[in-house]
């Protein structure tokens, strides 16, 4: 059981030039749509922004995990973007993010397996050296290997 069930090379975007939080979200959502993870991209983005409004999803150290649980999602997926320079994730606290994981989860999901996987991802992200490797990886393949290693 690992992240390979939820992410693939198409869902890893490096050197993203977006310079605002909204455009990063747009980019990642569009990518999820393209890989067939979403029925309805607008409804999904609504869920994402609704969650951000409840409290932004930055977790510090340049990482943000916007996530939407919605009927608009057909299969659970994770998309990852590394931006060229970090973007402001929260106006108020001035928190910035460069490593952004967008999580799409269907509203009703039998089985919790994918949630377990996301939990593992969260745990990994707390680790300083893991983040350093993510930042310095030079290819999609490298990032994929990092994310899917046990």
């Amino acid at each position: 059981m690992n992240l390979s069930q939820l992410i693939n090379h198409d869902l890893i975007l490096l050197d993203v030039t977006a310079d605002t939080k909204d455009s990063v979200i747009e980019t990642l959502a569009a990518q999820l749509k393209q890989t067939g993870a979403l029925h309805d991209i607008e409804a999904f983005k609504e869920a994402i922004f609704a969650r951000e409004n409840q409290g932004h999803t930055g977790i510090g150290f340049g990482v943000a995990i916007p996530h939407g649980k919605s009927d608009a999602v057909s299969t659970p997926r994770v998309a990852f973007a590394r931006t060229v320079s970090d973007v402001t994730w929260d106006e108020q606290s001035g928190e910035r993010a460069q490593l952004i994981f967008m999580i799409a989860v269907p509203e009703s999901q039998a089985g919790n397996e994918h949630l377990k996987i996301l939990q593992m991802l969260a745990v990994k992200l707390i680790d300083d050296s893991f983040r350093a490797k993510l930042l310095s990886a030079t290819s999609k393949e490298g990032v994929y290997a990092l994310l899917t290693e046990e």
Partner: protein
Amino acid sequence: MKLLAVTACPTGIAHTYIAAEKLKKTAADLGITIKVETRGSIGVENEITPEEIMEADGVIIAADKDVEKERFRGKRVLECSVADAIHKTESLIKRFQDGEVPVYKDKTEKADAAIPAEGKELKQESKVKRYLYRDLMNGVSFMIPFVVIGGLLIAISIGLGGVPTDKGFVIPEHSLWKTINDIGTVGFQFMVPILAGFIAMSIADRPGLAPGMIGGYIAANGSFYGSAAGAGFIGGIVAGFIAGYIAKGLKALKVPKMIQPIMPILVIPLLTSLAVSLIFIYIIGAPISALMEALTHFLNTMQGASKIVLALILGAMITFDMGGPINKVAFLFGAAMIGQGNPYIMGPIATAICIPPLGMGLATLLNKRKYYPEEQEAGKAALAMGLVGITEGAIPFASRDPLRVIPSIMAGGMVGSVISMLGHVGDSVPHGGPIVMLFSAIHNIPMFIIGIIAGVLVTAFMVNALKKPVSDQQ
């Protein structure tokens, strides 16, 4: 030192676990043992046992949703947001090391603390405020559609079908407008019960809903306690909080296993409904009719006094509770004066009547950032209600944020009322708002309009100066 923690976030996908991980890591760095219970979409994991609670030196609750705290009674409990647990982990744990964290008290004491009477610690107080705000907000957001539907239907039927008489605007019986007006009235009748019911539900979950609605209904209907007017939306808020905390208190009772299944659907709602209703009828209700009598008497004695003082008092009374008992007294006083051939009391009252909804409506247009989307919609409806003199249009705003909104609408109402009084504005129909002008019931229309505009501007600018942007409110 041994700590426990509970993490929970609204969607329960990511931050519940990140906070948990960050807490574990930081605690390990500081040489502290910690066990973290996570409450995410998967359900409860790593659940804390009673033995662990016994042994623990403190508990961190990092949650953006409700977490059962009763089991931590008597422990040092620190509540914070999930974000704080992620970003300020170290300082949270340090607060336990420095012995700064207060001991969590039992439920019933906390219920009393909802009215911050004792000189409690500041942080405790701000937490109580946060809960009060959350419960109010829940009630208000369910109430808004009822206010909007009721207010707009009544506004339309009065505007298009109303005929001014010395008893106010009357809509002819057996007309379509009368039927529409009746439908709108139904919306208004639900307003206070819904407000009270969903405040109670926010406090005590489902068992609070029915008692809150029943208590709210009684609050809004003075006939239960021999009063000419109900207790209005303020009474509804009071009923909602009473019902909520009684139900919450009953939920915390330890009962034999056999009774447990019927507690939430039978025992708690039944006992709470009885309690809140009886409290309202015998303890809160009776003083309301006495208060109304006293105010009526007071206004009668004011007749000879300074006109400006009288106008200030009337403006404040009309706007204070918007359809509640104090508003009613002032309104009936003005109507009685018309009957005695003096329309110059009703003039200032008619001015003040429309200022809360028009002022709040304008305020939402002037600064959108300070209002939730649903409030912006309610603001537009309030403008329509204001034009036909339905003061209730401002109730959603006043219920959600009474301490900022009520003073602002009172200030506007007082300004408008005084200008009308000085301008010798008369109104020979017991009704308020610009609509009265259409029926040539107003003497000195220019000053009436100036009074309304001045009052509306005062309300709108004052409330926007006092309010913070929505994003800062949480």
